């Protein structure tokens, strides 16, 4: 038996995409305990609601995170619409969901690339990011931005997508599907990848529930929860929504779930693009949220459930805006998953929760 050592891991580390610090208590090669520490990129965005009015804050909200940018603006707008009792046109709901699912596609492909990079498969990483570029081009074309879209507003959306462009969406997504399947083959069938991830960082279903984990991280532990199945907005019009879950509960399962969710998102986009109704894309929103009014909302972001809370005070500025992002829920699960793993697996486990520390700290 060796002696206990504490290894500091992060916030600046080659395998970490985000500034997360871990104190790893290590004995020999085994991690006995991992204490997470965040707080390196706190920007105080929640406080900005006092100085920016509720229309301006949408541009703050989407800058919480680069990858979930669309999700944050959509979740924020839905919350304010709930707070002010605004009903938005059906077409706007559809457009939002189409864009949101598209950002799930790009977020998951980006994550798959990072995972490939983490286990040392450079070529796979390049291929993933090459495919993601096609999705970003679709965004660039329809919203005018590659990362920050600024296309949602309280009461609807700013830009419409015409029929021709929607058809192009479907064409492009079908086009990447073939290549994407080849990439998935490499991820899910390659024995070297399997050996690296299977049985690593196991969290049983009961623990996942007790730790209130969310998103693909939880679904890989066979938790049957996805906010999309509650049918909020245009999700309610889907003919069929099947949860993607896996019973393996390890890093391999998390990869499997995310890989399958990309295909699911593409199907959702295709269905909604075929069903989208004609009509307005926004309703005018006047006035200010009532004093003391409260509303909460939740949205399935690529990384998991994101919770929003808003409280009005009668002025155009909100009294309080709260955004609970998926990563802060998953940190506890990550700390538990790290217990008892090999030190070489730490980066794999940290990556499979898809941490977004900037989201968590806002």
């Amino acid at each position, binding site marked *: 038996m060796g002696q206990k050592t504490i290894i500091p891991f992060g916030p600046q580390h080659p395998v970490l995409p985000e500034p997360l610090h871990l104190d790893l208590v290590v004995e020999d090669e085994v991690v006995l305990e991992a204490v997470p520490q965040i707080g390196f990129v706190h920007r105080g965005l929640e406080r900005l609601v006092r100085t*920016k009015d509720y*229309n*301006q*804050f949408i*541009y*703050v909200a989407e*800058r919480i995170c680069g990858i979930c940018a669309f999700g944050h603006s959509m979740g924020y707008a839905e919350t304010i619409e709930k707070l002010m009792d605004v009903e938005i046109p059906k077409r706007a709901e559809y457009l939002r969901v189409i864009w949101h699912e598209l950002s799930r596609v790009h977020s998951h492909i980006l994550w798959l690339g990072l995972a490939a990079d983490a286990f040392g498969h450079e*070529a*796979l990483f390049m*291929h993933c990011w*090459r495919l993601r*570029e096609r999705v970003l*081009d679709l965004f*660039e*074309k*329809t919203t*005018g*931005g590659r990362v*920050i879209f*600024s296309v949602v*507003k309280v009461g609807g959306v*700013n*830009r419409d997508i015409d029929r021709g462009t929607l058809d192009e969406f479907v064409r492009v997504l079908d086009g990447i599907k073939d*290549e994407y399947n*080849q*990439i998935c*083959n*490499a991820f899910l*069938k*390659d*024995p*070297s990848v399997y050996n690296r991830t299977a049985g690593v960082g196991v969290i049983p279903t009961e623990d996942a529930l007790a730790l209130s984990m969310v998103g693909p991280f939880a679904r890989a532990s066979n938790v049957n929860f996805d906010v999309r199945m509650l049918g909020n907005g245009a999700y309610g019009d889907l003919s069929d929504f099947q949860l993607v879950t896996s019973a393996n509960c390890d890093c391999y399962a998390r990869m499997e779930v995310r890989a399958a969710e990309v295909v699911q998102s593409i199907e959702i986009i295709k269905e909604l693009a075929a069903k989208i109704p004609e009509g307005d894309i926004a309703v005018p929103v006047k006035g200010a949220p009532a004093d003391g009014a409260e509303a909460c909302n939740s949205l399935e972001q690529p990384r998991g459930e994101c919770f929003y809370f808003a409280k009005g005070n009668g002025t155009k500025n909100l009294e309080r805006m709260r955004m609970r992002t998926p990563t802060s829920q998953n940190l506890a699960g990550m700390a538990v998953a790290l217990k008892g793993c090999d030190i070489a697996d730490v980066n794999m486990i940290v990556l499979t929760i898809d941490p977004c520390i900037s989201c968590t700290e806002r």
Partner: protein
Amino acid sequence: MFKLGKMTFGSLFKKPETVKYPFETKPQPQGLKGHIVLDADNCILCGMCEKSCPTDCITVNKENRTWNIIPFQCIQCGYCTQVCPKKCLAMDPNYWAASVSKSTNSIPVPDQKKDDQKPAKAAQCNEPVANAEKEPEPAKPASDADVKEPVAIDGELEAKLAIMEADKAERVRKALLSR
């Protein structure tokens, strides 16, 4: 073992996905949020863009009749283009040119018959106000009149001061207090 072999091998013979950037650029799609352009001929200097800008990068100077923007502060959100009542702000697909120092772009706005645009708005309050388009200067004599009746100062002057620019309001207030 070679699940990715076909794809990777195929890439050897395909056209590269990337472009040789400085010599070749990707075409900008229509509607890309590159930078804000102002159609100065239609601008009425209403200040809506200044009020709505989340980063306070736009300033509208009514006295000098200029519309100013600090490109480094602009986040290309496009909110100003939405709120502009005359739709004279637009997003150009080309990005701002790189620069070595922070600067302010000042765009002069030509003076037009200002009376035919503004009265429509003032008319909403159903008040027989003749000079609806208020140039900042004439505000001073008006506020001097207020001083004679302290009651009138209370609410009304305060409202006036509030909508003035900060430094002006300060001057008026000083004048008031000195009496």
